C-alpha cells in the first residue's frame, strides 16, 4: 500500500468515526401518553431537586438518568445548577423537612425506559439518539446540545 493510499484510508476512517459520533442532544422525555405537555427550565430544576411539580393534580416523578458518565456533569450544570455534594444535601434536606421524594436513579437506558413505560407521570432525560425512533416516548424539550 502506498503512503498516499494509507493517508486516504485513515482520513476516510476518521470521517466515518466523526459521522458516527455526531452532535449529541439531551432531551426531556415522558411516556407518549403522558399529560405533561411542557416544562420550563425552572420546573425541570424543581422537579429534579425533589420539589413537588404537579400536572392535573398529580405529582410528576423524576427519573435521573445515570446510564452514561457524560450525563452527570450536564445534569449538575444545566439542570439543577449545583455541585454533586450540594445537590445531595439539598435533596436530603427536602426529605428531612418536607418528606419530599428524591428522584429515582436509573443506571441503564433500559431501566430509564422501563420506568417511563410503567408510569405516565415519570419524567426523565435521555440522549436524543436513544429515543428518536421510539413511538412509546415523547420528547418534551431539548435540554442541552453540543
Amino acid at each position, binding site marked *: 500500500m502506498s503512503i498516499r493510499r494509507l493517508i486516504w484510508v485513515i482520513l476516510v476512517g476518521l470521517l466515518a468515526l466523526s459521522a458516527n459520533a455526531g452532535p449529541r442532544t439531551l432531551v426531556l422525555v415522558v411516556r407518549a401518553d403522558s399529560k405533561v405537555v411542557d416544562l420550563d427550565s425552572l420546573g425541570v430544576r424543581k422537579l429534579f431537586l425533589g420539589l413537588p411539580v404537579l400536572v392535573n393534580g398529580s405529582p410528576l416523578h423524576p427519573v435521573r438518568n445515570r446510564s452514561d458518565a457524560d450525563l452527570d456533569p450536564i445534569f449538575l450544570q444545566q439542570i439543577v445548577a449545583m455541585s454533586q455534594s450540594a445537590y445531595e444535601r439539598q435533596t436530603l*434536606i427536602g426529605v428531612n423537612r418536607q418528606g*419530599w*421524594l428524591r428522584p429515582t436513579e436509573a443506571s441503564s437506558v433500559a431501566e430509564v425506559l422501563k420506568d417511563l413505560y410503567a*408510569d405516565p407521570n415519570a419524567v426523565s432525560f435521555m440522549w436524543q439518539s436513544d429515543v428518536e425512533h421510539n413511538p412509546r416516548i415523547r420528547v418534551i424539550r431539548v435540554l442541552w446540545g453540543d
Partner: protein
Amino acid sequence: MRFGRLLGLGLLLSWQLARGEPLKYEFLLLPSAEFVGTFARHSPDTQIHDDAIQADILLTLQQGPLKVFGEYLVSDHEGDLERLQLGWQLSDDTVIWAGRFHEPGSVWNHDHHHGQYLQTSITRPAIEEWEDLGGVLPQHFTGVLIESGANVLNGRRLRMAVGGGIAPQITADGLEAFDLLHPDTDTRHQLGFQGRVSLHPNEFSESGGGLLLADDELTTVGLTQPTLARLDHVHLRLFGLFATYAQSNWKLTATIYAADSRMYYATHGHDDSFFVGYFQGEYRFAYDLTGFARWEDSVGASSSGYLQLFDRFARARQVVGMRWDFVHRQALTVQFARSHTLEGRYSDIRLQWSAAFF
C-alpha cells in the same frame, strides 16, 4: 383516640381519592453517636439525657397527591414518634398536613428537625431544645399544618406556614407534648397556634429572613413544688425574627425571640417577658472541614417566672467547634461550649459521629 380515628378516616378517604397512582416511598436513616464530658461545674444540674447513640428514621409514602410522612427517633434512652403527618399536596406550592408535627414557629427545628447529620453544630440553641430535653418552648403539636409558598417581587420567594393543634402541657419534669402512640388519659392539653413567614431571594436559596408568631395555652399537671402547686396554666405568646445569609463557603444565622407569658394561679395572675437570641457563623475550609461558632444570650431570663419552671435552661451559652466530613455522608464533629444556666454555669466538650444513609 378520637384524633387517631379521624386521622385513620382521613387516610382511608385520601387513599381512595389517590387510587390508580403509583405508590412511591423514601427512606432516610440519620444515625449518630456522641461522647460528652462536663467540667468546670458550678451548677447543680447540667444536661439531662445526653443521647450517646441515636438513630433518626424518616419514611415517606406518596401516592398521587396523598402523602404519609413519619419520623421515629430511637436512642439509648427512648423511642419516640416525633412526627406523623398525613398530607395532601394541593398544588406545587401548598401542602396541608394533619397529625403530629414540629411547630413552624421554631426557626432551628423547622429547618433541622432531629437528624444530627444535617446540622453543623452538635447541640441546638437552648431556646430551641426539645421538650423532653429540658426545652422551654413547645415544639411538638398534634393538629393541622399548612405550608405554602409564592413567587413575589420579581422572582423572590415568600414561604409561609401556619399551624394549630394540641399544645404540650407543663409537668414536674418539664414540657410534655401530646403522645400519639400512647395518649395520656390524665390529660389537660389545650391548643396552640403558630405562624411563620419568610422572604428569600429565589425559590432555591437558603438565604432569607422572616418573622414568626405563636400563641399557646400550656396547662399544668402534677406540679409538686409548693410555690407552683396552685399554678393552673400559662398563656405564652411568642414573637420572633430570623435571618440567614448563605454563600458557598459560609453561612450566618441570627434569631431573636420575644416572649410574653401570663401565669394563671388559682388566686392571681403573674406577667413577665424575656428575650432570647442567638447568632451562628459557619465557614467551610479546605479538606471538608467546617468551623462554627454560636453565641446565645438573653434579657430578662433570670427574673422570668415562666423560665423558673425550667431551671436547667441555659440563659447564655458560647459554642465553638469543627466538623469534618471525612467520607461520603459521614461526619465527625468536636464542640466546646460554656453554658450559664439560671442556677450556675458549666462547660462541656463533645465528640460526635453522624451520618446519612438511604
